[in-house]
């Protein structure tokens, strides 16, 4: 009975979102205050209904209700409680329900934190979000309801894919979805502004904090996924240019362009059309990402068993979203004013270059990701595009961006001059050259690639130091200023991590018998042997490795090979000794003859800087979004609007 209540709540939510999507939009266009006033209650109702339905599904998992097919397929009584709950989004149906829950959650947040916005604007934003929710709810109900019954019920469920029984899974999908779905808010603001014909600085200011917060979630979600792949999958890599990874990375690139372009629109009133296009693109790419992941059309190391019917539904949804928003854009864009003029050298131009580079990079990733699909659709054979393609294209496009990151915040709006910029940045340039020449020698062999990357990272970091010193002379910087600098610092740290680990990493697959040693990057592993350990729902072969450096013992590492009771699939648990300047990593392969094992050992210099950099970027984004001026100025502009309204009346 309880699962049916959840199913019923979803159906009700579908009807409510139809109301939320249609009436407030019509009301705002036709000036019908009663219809406009429906937006908030409808949003709250949709959120509560979907939340209820999500809690019902969670309850079904918690209480091991195997008469629900989705629960029977993804959980069993042996599963620890934490994973029984995270199993709710361990499969297709549940993760889509999570998607929808977050979508309604974002809409509810907009409804709550937009008291100072004009009611018509709020109604339009919530209306657009309502329409998107309607589409996705229809998708859930028609193709992938998690509440389908399995009658008669089975005694025991099939269990969660062992790969997903990890703390990483508890957080990775929700964070990533928060980011994906958060793009819908930026999208809704853009569409609402187009509908109202009010593309102005106020619109940019409203949508900025939302976009930044969504971007933070996306950044954290991608970083966590990358870290999870690194330690859980036993591959030791942090990025594989896999279609599913690209699916999350493309919206990130466009969202990064969007938060920079929104800055120009807010401060200078320029780039309005471009900003709207980016908002549409970011959300469309989020939907495309969902399509790529959920349809299984691409061969991916991440692919799960999937159903092509679902892919077609998302594709249709994507076509409707892209088609209708571009039509609206085409109708409204010619009327939009150009905004503030700017000289060829100005902060506007630098941010424009930032945008062009990020969008071109996204285009290159998109092409590489979809190329196999295109060729297959044309009947020209099946092929795959390898990681070297992405590295060869992506890295050169990003290099100029890294050069400009240091100059952008220094250049003045409207009209900048090359002289003052160079005068202020020459110490950073000097530091960069010295770092490029010297630092790689400390790490080992000198390579041009790593020298360039370290020089660029030092260039960015030194420029930030210079700006901070200067800024303190003129008073206390704002939170958003700090946010920008910290995020850029994160980028520098990320570059260091990528360059160091890709140049100096060492990887060896070896055959080891107890007592044998292997050395990578100055660290020696001594294999002590393997013995069986019993876990809550698995038996593990646990290896012991004594880690020493220069003869000094550091610690003992225990990588595992787990065999879960309910699954034929073995699982590798790597053991990692993490450090600020290096990780050492050991994982067990297969048992060989006698007591020997195939063993994989890695030395990964500075690899944690990659995720540390992402954390810094997220922290910067949070600071920027928390800036007081978003709250104060909104008040002022509301007062100004009210005054203007009073004047006209």
């Amino acid at each position, binding site marked *: 009975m309880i699962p049916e209540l959840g199913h019923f709540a979803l159906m009700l939510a579908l009807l409510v979102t139809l109301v939320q999507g249609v009436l407030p939009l019509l009301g705002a266009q036709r000036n019908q205050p009663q219809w406009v006033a429906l937006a908030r209650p409808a949003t709250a109702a949709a959120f509560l209904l979907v939340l209820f339905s999500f809690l019902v599904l969670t309850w079904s998992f918690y209480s091991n209700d195997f008469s629900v097919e989705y629960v029977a397929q993804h959980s069993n009584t042996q599963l620890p409680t934490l994973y029984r709950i995270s199993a709710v989004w361990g499969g297709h149906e549940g993760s889509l329900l999570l998607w929808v829950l977050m979508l309604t959650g974002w809409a509810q947040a907009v409804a709550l934190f937009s008291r100072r916005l004009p009611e018509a604007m709020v109604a339009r934003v919530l209306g657009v979000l309502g329409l998107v929710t309607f589409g996705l709810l229809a998708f859930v109900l028609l193709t992938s309801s998690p509440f389908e019954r399995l009658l008669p019920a089975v005694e025991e469920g099939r269990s969660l894919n062992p790969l997903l029984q990890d703390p990483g899974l508890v957080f990775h999908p929700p964070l990533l979805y928060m980011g994906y779905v958060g793009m819908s808010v930026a999208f809704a603001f853009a569409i609402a502004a187009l509908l109202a014909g009010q593309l102005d600085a106020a619109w940019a200011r409203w949508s900025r904090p939302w976009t930044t917060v969504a971007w933070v979630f996306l950044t954290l979600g991608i970083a966590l996924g990358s870290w999870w792949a690194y330690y859980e999958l036993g591959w030791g890599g942090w990025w594989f240019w896999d279609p599913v990874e690209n699916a999350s990375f493309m919206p990130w690139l466009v969202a990064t362009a969007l938060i920079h372009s929104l800055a120009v629109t807010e401060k200078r009133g320029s780039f309005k059309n471009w900003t709207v296009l980016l908002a549409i693109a970011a959300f469309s790419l989020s939907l495309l990402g969902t399509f790529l992941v959920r349809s299984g059309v691409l*061969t991916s190391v991440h692919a799960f068993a999937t159903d092509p019917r679902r892919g077609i539904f998302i594709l249709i949804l994507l076509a409707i979203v892209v088609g209708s928003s571009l039509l609206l854009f085409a109708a409204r864009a010619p009327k939009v004013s150009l905004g503030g003029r700017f000289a060829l050298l100005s902060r506007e131009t630098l941010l424009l270059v930032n945008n062009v580079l990020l969008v071109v990079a996204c285009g290159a990733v998109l092409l590489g990701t979809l190329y196999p699909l295109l060729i297959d659709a044309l009947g020209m054979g099946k092929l795959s595009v390898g990681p070297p393609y992405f590295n*060869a294209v992506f890295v050169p496009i990003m290099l100029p961006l890294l050069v400009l990151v240091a100059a952008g915040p220094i250049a003045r709006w409207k009209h900048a001059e090359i002289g003052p910029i160079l005068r202020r940045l020459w110490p950073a340039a000097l530091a960069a050259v010295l770092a490029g020449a010297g630092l790689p020698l400390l790490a080992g062999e000198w390579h041009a690639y790593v020298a360039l990357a370290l020089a660029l990272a030092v260039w960015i970091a030194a420029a930030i130091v210079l700006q901070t010193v200067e800024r303190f002379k003129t008073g206390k910087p704002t939170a958003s200023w700090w946010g920008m600098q910290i995020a850029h610092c994160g980028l520098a740290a990320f570059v260091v991590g990528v360059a160091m680990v890709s140049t100096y990493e060492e990887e060896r697959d070896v055959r080891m018998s107890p007592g044998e040693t292997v050395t990578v990057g100055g660290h020696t592993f001594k294999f002590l042997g393997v013995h069986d350990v019993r876990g809550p729902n698995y038996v593990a072969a646990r290896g012991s490795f004594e880690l020493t450096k220069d003869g000094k013992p550091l610690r003992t590492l225990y990588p595992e090979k787990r065999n879960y009771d309910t699954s034929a699939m073995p699982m590798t648990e790597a053991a990692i000794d993490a450090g600020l300047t290096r990780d050492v990593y050991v994982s067990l392969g297969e048992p060989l003859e006698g007591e020997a094992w195939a063993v994989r050992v890695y030395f990964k210099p500075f690899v944690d800087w990659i995720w540390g950099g992402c954390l810094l970027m997220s922290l910067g984004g949070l600071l920027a979004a928390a800036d007081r001026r978003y709250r104060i100025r909104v008040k002022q502009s509301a007062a100004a609007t009210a005054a203007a309204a009073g004047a006209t009346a």
Partner: protein
Amino acid sequence: MKPRHKRIALIGGGLAALGIAAALVLNALNSNIAFFVTPTEIAEGKAPQGKTFRVGGMVKEGSLRRDNLTVHFVITDTAKEVPVAYTGILPDLFMEGKGAVAQGRIGADGVFAASEVLAKHDENYMPPEAQHAVDQAQKTGQTLKQ
């Protein structure tokens, strides 16, 4: 600078960036794609010589043989077979009788030297390429019987 010149400079800069990006893309794409070939196509001599490609199908039961870190196995699409050698640690889900996709080159001895064997997330998942190879082989098998 006049606005018109400015616009020309901006557009020119944009086009130049796009041109460079396009050149990068085409160049990189050309050298980094791996075609997918079925065991039947290899038997028919349709495999690209001296180039990296992918082969997929089922891992033949009883064909798995370990020689220290080097693993030998046979990939079959149920009609034809191709022997594969791979050095290193196989992904967890690699099993006899299950689907697999390997990337590498074919040697003069007819053994496919794999540089990578694709991992999967899910034991019920069949790589689409492996499925495709088996479907193709069975389709042609049926037409031959008729």
